[in-house]
């Protein structure tokens, strides 16, 4: 009266193998779960019996104990429904125990015995492969992601009955998922060529993409900040398979995956009312990746940056610096990767029209200063590129032609990135933006003219110490785009155009 099935519980993004043991013995009919089941797993108890009976199978009217091992690890998530059910069926000899050998099962059950799409199946498959198991049996919609893991058999089933049939040898799964799992080239819904005018902003995005720099855009409502930010994701280098897998895994864990491998870089745009938990990751029972992790390898766009909650913004410092975020909760502590490009957007003033060509700003002076203070925080010190996005007049919009396509720009970006990778191979960095200030000052080579220019900018008070480092890194990226090993004066000049002084004269004055 004993059955044993492999399951997986997901902690953070990582799957941990769980042995699900079932024992059916004497006593009043009941189902007891032991081995630190979380609230989500406890919840499954009431679901499993109806599912089994709906599938035309028999639920033992005896005392059933299911143990989840190892007992030190808290198990969470609905993915353990199927292994628990199957453990009971094995214990009652309704499925052959030998057939379960080497398989990992995962999936949520419905009361009618169906298998419902379940978050985190990619992590389950990766854990199975790491333990050198034969394959996974998962809900059919999740088979596409599971199939991304090499050297693993994937069985996608739609009902509990099919799983039982497969184990009894009476049902064969479809192989469809294996073919469509790996979609090739990313297909973008938007393109940089659709932007009219805004040549300077387009150029700034190219520089940001080429060096991995974070961007602050200031502009009146309707200037096109969101439109531009959305297109940054399309000119970033195409993701490697490892990067794409990481992104897919994070989205799988969050239950946002729809299909197989995500080849497009994610673009996340949380609303400014977002809670710190939703932005950074967390939750009371199941620790979910937050927006910063869903934007991993992509773009995190924070429109109305000044409106975000203070604690949420403060929490961005760690992911911006380390490329990962650690979420601590009562139920434990997990780490999610979160290396993203931040695009912050803000109005130039509370009313939104300071410096606008068509409307006059109506802000009171003291409000301007409060507002400028919000943009002066330590977080924005980590933003290398600052630019003004002007609202175009009708005339200007009509006269400007369209620019280059995302593909053309991406070509230059990829070339510039490969120059950086080669240069920093020994230092362990991949792009200019990640270079710490002291290393940038030591490693980055300037022509004499460029050095003089930066020096005179400092003398003219146009540049602070931190501004100097930023200009250095951005200048390095511009030189990379220009295929130059040495930073030339023209590169420095352009880099200085993305400095904050001209952006916020009021702010600079307030200091």
């Amino acid at each position, binding site marked *: 009266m004993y059955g044993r099935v492999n399951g997986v519980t997901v902690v953070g993004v990582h799957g941990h193998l769980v042995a699900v043991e079932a024992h059916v013995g004497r006593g009043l009919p009941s189902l007891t779960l032991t081995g630190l089941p979380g609230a989500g797993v406890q919840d499954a108890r009431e679901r499993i019996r109806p599912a089994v009976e709906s599938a035309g199978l028999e639920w033992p009217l005896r005392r059933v104990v299911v143990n989840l091992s190892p007992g030190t690890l808290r198990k969470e998530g609905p993915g353990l429904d199927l292994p628990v059910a199957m453990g009971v069926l094995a214990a009652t000899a309704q499925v052959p125990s030998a057939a379960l050998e080497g398989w990992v099962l995962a999936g949520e059950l419905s009361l009618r015995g169906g298998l419902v799409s379940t978050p985190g199946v990619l992590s389950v498959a990766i854990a199975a492969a790491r333990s050198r198991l034969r394959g996974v049996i998962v809900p059919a919609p999740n088979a596409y992601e599971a199939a991304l893991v090499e050297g693993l058999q994937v069985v996608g089933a739609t009902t509990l009955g099919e799983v039982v049939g497969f184990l009894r040898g009476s049902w064969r799964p479809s192989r469809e998922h294996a073919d469509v799992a790996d979609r090739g080239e990313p297909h973008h819904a938007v393109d940089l060529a659709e932007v009219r*005018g*805004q*040549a*300077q902003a*387009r*150029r700034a995005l190219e520089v940001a993409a080429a060096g991995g720099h974070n961007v602050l855009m200031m*502009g*009146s409502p309707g200037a096109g900040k969101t439109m531009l930010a959305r297109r940054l994701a399309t000119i970033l280098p195409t993701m490697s398979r490892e990067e794409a897998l990481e992104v897919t895994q994070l989205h799988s864990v969050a239950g946002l995956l729809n299909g197989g491998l995500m080849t497009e870089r994610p673009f996340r745009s949380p609303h400014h009312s977002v809670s710190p938990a939703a932005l950074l990751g967390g939750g009371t029972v199941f620790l979910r990746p937050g927006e910063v992790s869903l934007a991993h390898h992509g773009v995190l766009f924070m429109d109305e940056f000044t409106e975000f909650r203070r604690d949420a913004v403060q929490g961005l410092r760690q992911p911006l610096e380390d490329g990962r975020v650690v979420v601590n909760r009562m139920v434990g502590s997990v780490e999610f990767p979160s290396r993203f490009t931040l695009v912050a957007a803000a109005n*130039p003033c509370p009313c939104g029209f*300071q*410096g*606008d*060509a068509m409307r*006059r*700003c109506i802000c*009171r*002076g*003291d409000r301007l*200063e*409060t507002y400028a203070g919000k943009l002066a925080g330590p977080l924005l010190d980590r933003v290398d590129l600052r*630019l*003004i*996005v*002007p609202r*175009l007049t009708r005339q*200007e919009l009509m*006269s*400007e032609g369209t620019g280059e396509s995302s593909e053309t720009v991406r070509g230059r970006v990829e070339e510039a990135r490969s120059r950086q990778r080669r240069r920093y191979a020994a230092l362990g960095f991949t792009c200019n933006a990640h270079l710490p200030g002291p290393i940038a000052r030591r490693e980055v080579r300037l022509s004499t003219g460029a050095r003089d220019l930066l020096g*005179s*900018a400092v003398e*003219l008070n*146009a540049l602070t110490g931190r501004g100097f480092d930023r200009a250095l890194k951005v200048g390095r990226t*511009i030189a990379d785009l220009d295929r130059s090993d040495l930073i030339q004066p*023209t*590169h420095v*000049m*352009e880099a*200085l*155009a993305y400095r904050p002084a*001209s*952006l916020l*004269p009021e702010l600079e004055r*307030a200091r």
Partner: protein
Amino acid sequence: MPAEAAVRPAASPWPVWPDGFGAGEEERRALLVLSALRGVTPRKLLPIALRCGSAAATLARIARGDAGSERDRAVARTMRPEDIDAAADACGSRFVTWSSREYPAQLRQIHDPPAALYVIGREPADVTSAVAVVGARRCTALGREAAHDIGHGLGRANVTVVSGAARGIDAAAHEGALGVDGSTLAVLGSGLDVAYPFDDRSLVRRIAREGTLLSEYPPGVPPSRYHFPARNRIVAGLCRATVVVEGAERSGSMITAEHAMEFGRDVFAMAGAPNSSLAHTPLQLIREGATLIRGADDLLSDLGLELDLPRTESQAELDPVERRILAEVIEPLLPDRLAVSLGMTVPAVVGTLMRLELRGFVRNVGGRFETTLRPPVATRA
């Protein structure tokens, strides 16, 4: 020649306070209380004072109920001059009466001169040559630049820059003067201890330290919309000339300029584009006979002062590309437009504009570039 005659060079065309008004301790105490009466402006007080002859008699009359509001009467009876004195001391200010040697001579020549002033810093009587620079609080970068230049030039020429310490044009003018250790004076529309402008007291504190702060209101009086027009008459009255840099329709600057004209002082107005709402006051004043100026240079030469402005590099030092771009910027322009019309790449245009901006030839206003007030030397001749 008695000292009194030296500070009163000519008779004022308007009625002024009687001789000896506020002179002596008793008079001074009476005047302290009179200055605290909100319902009795100098205009109302002056005829009473002329009939009574002294501050003490005037105060007694108001306490009896012959003038002022019910509340003024109560204040006149109960207010203790020691309390006002203490408050004035607490914020480091002095009480300067009409009969004091420190009372500025120019201020004796206006209608409804204040009977007394609260002063912090340098003696206003030392202000023998002063020019008012006034304009909009919400001004353009161009206006701020012009006001700063004017303050700078006047400061270098040892002329006191008088204004209202408001943000925008006022602040830029004060800062221009302070930047070259010039003399500057701010007239407030509130008590000297009141934190106004509410957001930024740093300028006011600096003026108190390095220049003069002045108000006709005793400490603790909050700013009020009725105080500012009255304050403006003091700004205009202290100065031989008033310069209006930017002002919208029905601006406070218009009131200051009108006072200056009435007092027979010179009025200068900085030209602006007719389609700019901030050019309304200056252009209106020019139509009414004010002298048009294009910037600090014009003002200083009209005042017969030495031209000593910070100069940007001459155009001779610009390279051909920079010159071409500069010639193209006739209105605020996007770098995109410049790139198209000059056949250059956007990065090249952005870089060149940056170089021009660093040297003060252009500035970035909301993503568009415009030329600054300092025209290249070559076109100046």
